């Protein structure tokens, strides 16, 4: 096949590209320039947005022996990922930008462009697997569960999964680093990237404050009684206990947790631990990674964080919302996060959480 390998400058995408070449594919490396004003050097553990990262990617492509190009996706990234991230926070939700990037950039803008240019698909260094079954190509968890990235890929449609190649899903991260070393790739020991790539300082709250302002608002209890003040509601997350700065203690001295963020009234609602419990969640904008979910309730698992646990549940889709009833309640669940349904290791689909109870 003729493939585009998306190369971030990290070890995973470099090994993925090398494996695709070794598998006999005709591969061209592409680095996505996602920032119109990239920093020169990496600081901390963010890796894919600096000039240094693009040099690392180019060097890896040269060592592998494939052509290398940089595609400027800064505008698409800003409109589709960064703006969405800000809008979600402004609306009191907690978004996952990596998921949005996969949905709108890597397997949309890049895959579309690749296909138009005569390529068959896109290779990435994501830890996930695909399988061919009777119902077509399906998406599965990686063998290395600690590195599994199927959660952030759960926004891919069947058609996008058709064009996605994940050569690393069957290997552990430890072995990928060894393999990179053996292949002479200088990025073998480059630190893993985490944090949000477009927040250069790693200070998410500060970054949001700079863009959304820091309007002071009330912190109230469940009866609506004001018991404190906050400096920008979006810097809080559901379930947060520390840093609330509350001076009025509860009657029994028990701690308070953030239960709800109300952007319109700029209010943060706090309450007791048991009030965080969620046993049902509903999600909008559902995407199926294989056969569509129906009104018929099914048994399976739901995951609500990138590296969270898979929680046993029953789920169904009423045509608008994806609903999951948990067997055991979960404490602290933010709207805006993705709820991803698994059938064993297979990713069934996902939706953006809009209601919890």
């Amino acid at each position: 096949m003729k493939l585009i390998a998306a190369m971030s400058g990290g070890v995973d995408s470099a090994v993925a590209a090398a494996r695709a070449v070794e598998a006999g594919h005709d591969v061209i490396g592409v680095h996505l320039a996602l920032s119109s004003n990239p920093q020169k050097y990496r600081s901390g553990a963010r890796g894919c947005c600096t000039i240094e990262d693009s040099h690392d990617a180019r060097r890896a492509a040269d060592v592998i022996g494939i052509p290398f190009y940089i595609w400027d996706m800064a505008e698409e990234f800003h409109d589709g990922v960064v703006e969405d991230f800000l809008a979600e926070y402004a609306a009191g939700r907690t978004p996952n930008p990596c998921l949005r990037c996969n949905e709108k950039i890597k397997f949309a803008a890049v895959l579309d462009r690749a296909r138009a240019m005569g390529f068959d698909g896109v290779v990435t260094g994501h830890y996930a697997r695909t399988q061919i079954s009777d119902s077509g190509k399906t998406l599965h968890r990686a063998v290395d569960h600690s590195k599994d990235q199927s959660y952030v890929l759960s926004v891919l449609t069947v058609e996008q999964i058709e064009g996605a190649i994940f050569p690393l899903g069957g290997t552990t991260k430890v072995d990928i680093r060894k393999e990179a070393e053996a292949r002479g790739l200088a990025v073998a020991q480059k630190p893993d990237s985490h944090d949000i790539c477009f927040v250069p300082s790693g200070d998410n709250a500060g970054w949001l404050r700079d863009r959304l302002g820091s309007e002071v608002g009330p912190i109230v209890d469940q009866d609506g009684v004001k018991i404190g003040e906050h400096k920008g509601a979006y810097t809080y997350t559901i379930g947060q206990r520390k840093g609330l700065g509350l001076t009025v203690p509860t009657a029994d001295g028990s701690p308070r947790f953030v239960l709800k963020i109300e952007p319109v009234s700029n209010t943060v609602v706090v309450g007791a631990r048991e009030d965080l419990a969620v046993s049902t969640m509903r999600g909008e904008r559902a995407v199926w990674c294989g056969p569509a979910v129906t009104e018929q309730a099914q048994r399976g698992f739901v995951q609500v964080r990138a590296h969270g646990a898979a929680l046993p549940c029953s789920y169904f889709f009423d045509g608008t919302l994806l609903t999951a009833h948990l067997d055991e309640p979960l404490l602290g669940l933010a709207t805006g996060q993705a709820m991803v349904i698994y059938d064993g290791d297979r990713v069934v689909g996902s939706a953006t959480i809009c209601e919890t109870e």
Partner: protein
Amino acid sequence: MSSIYLDHAATTPMVEEALIAMTAQLARLGNPSSLHTHGRATRKTLEDAREVIAKEVGCLPSEVIFTASGTEANNTALKGLYWQGRDKGKHVVAISSIEHHAILDPAHWLEVHEGAEVIQIPVNADGVVDLEFLTHLVATRGNEIAVISVMHANNETGVIQPIRTVVEIAGEIPVHTDAAQSFKKVPLSFAELGVYAMSLSAHKTGGPLGIGALILRRAVEIPALLHGGGQEREIRSGTLNAPAIVAFAAAAKSKYYDSAKVSALRDSFIAGISAALPEVIVNGLRAERLPGIVNITFPGTQSDTLLLLMDAQNISCSTGSACSAGVHEASHVLLAMGHNEVSAQSSLRFSFGATSTSADVDFAVSVLPDVITRGRAANLS
């Protein structure tokens, strides 16, 4: 599948004479600044080379200052002439709007760090510098101008600039010209042009990478960028790169470049492309151009996509413009010629050299229509 090289303006193969001269010199011992036998031997070889180059560019041997690149020659000339002028109360640096980054960027640096006022001289739609603008500029602010720099021929379009006229308009104002693309391609004489300074780069003309020259009028003393042993008129220090210099001279003397042949190839390429894709625009078509460079706009495409697709067909060409972190930016040259951001980003530079053949042209012409079709589809996706 053979690979086809249509990027001779980026760099071109070393000619055989240069390769032989360079490898022979690499084996010889001696620092040209040393007074002993070994030093003298190298010095002799090196000064022979200087005389050869001087003869080929129409200057005195003492006017040749060897540098490590064309970029260094440009920096030395622009900064040096600016500093010299500033000492006399002149603070304006006038450059054409289509200069190479090796002039644009030092000019910008002078503005930010050294108090210069940079004025860009526009070009017309054919990419030729606006002489009326320059005349008016010199008439109104001539006594403030420290240096005027206009390239001899543009590296992206090949359009040749009227340097002789620029010098006439400039009068007493020092004029520098970047002739990196022109040397050996079209007649070039430092003395006849009448400029103060001229930059050359060996690897654009069959010589090796890493050697250039600043041709600077004798008796013009400008401040140095590199201080040290004072080897080159105290304007440029550093042990002279004898192997590269003798190779530069061998290339300068060589008759390898047949301008008529190269321009015929270029014209047959233009004819072939225009027949297959009538909507294309050849930039600077009406102007006098170098034999080997052609810049073409393919409406509805993005040049970085086209480069990838051409590369996949084993054809090496270029956008001709600089990259920032490898992200392709619209060419300032094409923008200066009246293109908008979109059409400027839909353009490719093809450059032919002494080793180009009609088979190269035929193959490129045969694959381009399909590349353009795919490029357009990718642009719409």
